[in-house]
């Protein structure tokens, strides 16, 4: 008897696995073919010498081990690109997140026009990036740009700054543009997080005599934790792989001042035809994102267990 019952249980779970597979497999196969294959191919290519002379379909592509990685790190554009990518990502994230959080808190209070205003703010998120890039390019112009005009008229600047024209200032142009783009995204996700915090927690805290600051640091922030985490990770991934904004605003210039990993990879592959090296840069980019994703998973797991 015992044995038969066991057997039945087994078949049940087998069927469950089968059904589960039916749900998972289509997505998994799609991912393997559409995402897994290109990544594997890219990894493979980063160990090959592929240049203008042998990109043709049937031509031999010699295996050169880590040579492409050595070459890209020896390239004088690589370090500025890495530095710029991190600077860009960190500053954008800091601005987007802090302003986004402030706006989310503001719109969480129910005042007249809160909803339409919040909707209005999302426009910058929905605008095509190339349009935003062109707009900012003109707005940052020292001769006719509105940003310089405002800064000079209000006395914040003595004379107009050629933001995109100097090697030291150029990266701040795309940073400004992207911060503006990203604020509503952060605000929306954080708003959703805020509305998930039950109101009675605040009420009982108020009864216990907690002031606004205490309520914010002791209740809002901890309970918003998971939302903050996903905003930051998604924001990091989104920001780190910036391409179009930079490409349209500066093309990586002046000199190499706004070159980032993705534009560097693109140029190596499609401008200079060093496909192996382009693949290597793309892999470095991916490795960094992967590390961030793994960190995120680890933090989530710690939280679940904790």
């Amino acid at each position, binding site marked *: 008897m015992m044995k038969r019952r066991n057997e039945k249980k087994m078949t049940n779970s087998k069927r469950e696995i089968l059904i589960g597979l039916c749900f998972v497999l289509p997505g998994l196969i799609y991912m393997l073919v559409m*995402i897994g294959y290109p*990544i594997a191919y890219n990894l493979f290519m980063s160990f090959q010498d592929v240049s203008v*002379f042998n990109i043709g379909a049937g031509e031999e592509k010699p295996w050169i081990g880590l040579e492409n990685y050595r070459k890209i790190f020896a390239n004088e554009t690589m370090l500025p690109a890495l530095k710029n990518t991190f600077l860009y990502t960190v500053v954008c994230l800091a601005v987007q997140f802090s302003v986004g959080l402030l706006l989310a808190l503001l719109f969480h209070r129910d005042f007249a026009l809160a909803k339409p205003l919040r909707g209005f703010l999302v426009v910058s998120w929905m605008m095509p990036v190339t349009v935003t890039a062109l707009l900012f390019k003109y707005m940052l*112009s*020292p001769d006719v740009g509105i940003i310089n005009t405002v800064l000079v008229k209000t006395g914040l600047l003595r004379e107009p700054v050629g933001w995109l024209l100097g090697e030291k200032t150029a990266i701040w142009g795309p940073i400004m543009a992207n911060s503006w783009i990203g604020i509503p995204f952060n605000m929306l996700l954080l708003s959703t997080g805020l509305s998930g915090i039950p109101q009675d927690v605040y009420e009982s805290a108020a009864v216990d005599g907690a002031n606004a600051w205490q309520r914010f640091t002791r209740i809002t922030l901890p309970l918003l934790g998971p939302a903050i985490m996903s905003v930051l990770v998604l924001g990091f991934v989104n920001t780190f792989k910036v391409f179009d904004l930079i490409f349209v605003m*500066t093309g990586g210039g002046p*000199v190499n001042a706004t070159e980032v990993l993705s534009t560097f990879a693109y140029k190596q592959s499609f401008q200079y035809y060093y496909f192996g090296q382009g693949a290597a840069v*793309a892999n470095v980019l991916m490795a960094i994102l992967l590390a961030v994703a793994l960190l995120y*998973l680890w933090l989530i797991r710690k939280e679940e267990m904790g």
Partner: protein
Amino acid sequence: MGRKKLLAMLLGVTLAAGSLAGCGGGGAKDTPAPAQETKEDEAAVQTKEDEPEQKAAAEKEEITLWHYYTTVNGENFEKMVEAYNNLPEGRVHVTVELIPRAELLKKYTLGIATGDLPEIAIVDNPDAASLTAAGMFEEVTELLNGWEGNSFVSGPLESGQYEGKQYTLPFRSNCLGLFVNEEHLEAAGVEKVPETWDELLSACEKLKGMGTSSYPFAMSAVKSEEGVFHFMPFFQSTGATVNEADSEGGIKAFEMIARLASEGYMSNECINWTQNDVEKQFAAGNASMMINGSWQISNILADAPELEYSIAYIPKDKESVSSLGGENIGITKSAENVEACWDFVSWMLSRENNVPFNVAGAAISPRADVTPEEQYPEDEKMRVFVELFEMAKPRGPHPKWTEISGAYQEGIQAVLVGSKTPEEAAAAVAGKVAEINASVE
């Protein structure tokens, strides 16, 4: 618990990877893209075939052509191909596909890697050598020599050569000249259009002295091929060649553009201006002189129909030169019947077809058997361009031209923003070019 963890992990990893794969910034990650694009292209082709179609097409060999011509040129180009398709004696039936300029080179490159190429390709002429080196084109030396219409200006013809053999042929040409707002010059007391660098500098000084908001001079120095295109007339006027950026002449050219910027003769913003941005500045009266190409004449006409201006030679150091632009046409390795394709190509290049197409788009036919007067009997401006065309030098041809161009782009920008002296910039460019040349061996 363990399996769940694993699943969550896998999902997280693929999610991160997936969002990355979407960025299009990497190398081979883009490989699945062409398949989708081809589908769209097929759809476009379908609608095209709904148009009145000739019966003979069925017996002819079907071939495809990629190009990036839009607006006036695009219409004329498609009309021209249609005229060929309607010829009873034509040996092939050509389907034209328009691909945005920024995409075209990428598509060719991917096409070489995957074997998915059109039979006939239009390419920007500085790219011809590298695509040829990559094995994209069939050699046409013998077909060209055996053709009675073989008569081309040498500069454009050379842009289609690689290792002494002919692969692509010049189809449409243009070159750079100096656009001059005569009203501004007159107002500033500049008596004659500057012909030398010294005259250019003193004219700029006078124009600047006017105290208006406009800049005396404008050119493109953007970090792309366009910036190099505009710099080359200065550079090559000194007698320097691309392989010797640090020669006396090379340094002098870098000094010249650095001076134009530092003296305030041209806006610092030129490092972000494409050729079309420069045209807009000139058309708006924000620049009194500009370097630009013949095709801008039609743009100025649209932007500022009232503007009075003339075309002049680009101010020279030693010799008057211009920079050659335009496209080449070639038969790719995808062609099954090269001779049948040549029938089409030679028809497109023949005098009676090629000249009208070029003239209609304010370009210059690369054919040597047609004089400036024949091409532009009444257009003063275009006639100057035809003269300039004869002194136009090609960029390259070099299989790694894009890389050489990249080195120059950085050099140009470095002297304009002042991060390198002309000597330092020239030395850095020369070093990189030497390395690139060494890698070609």
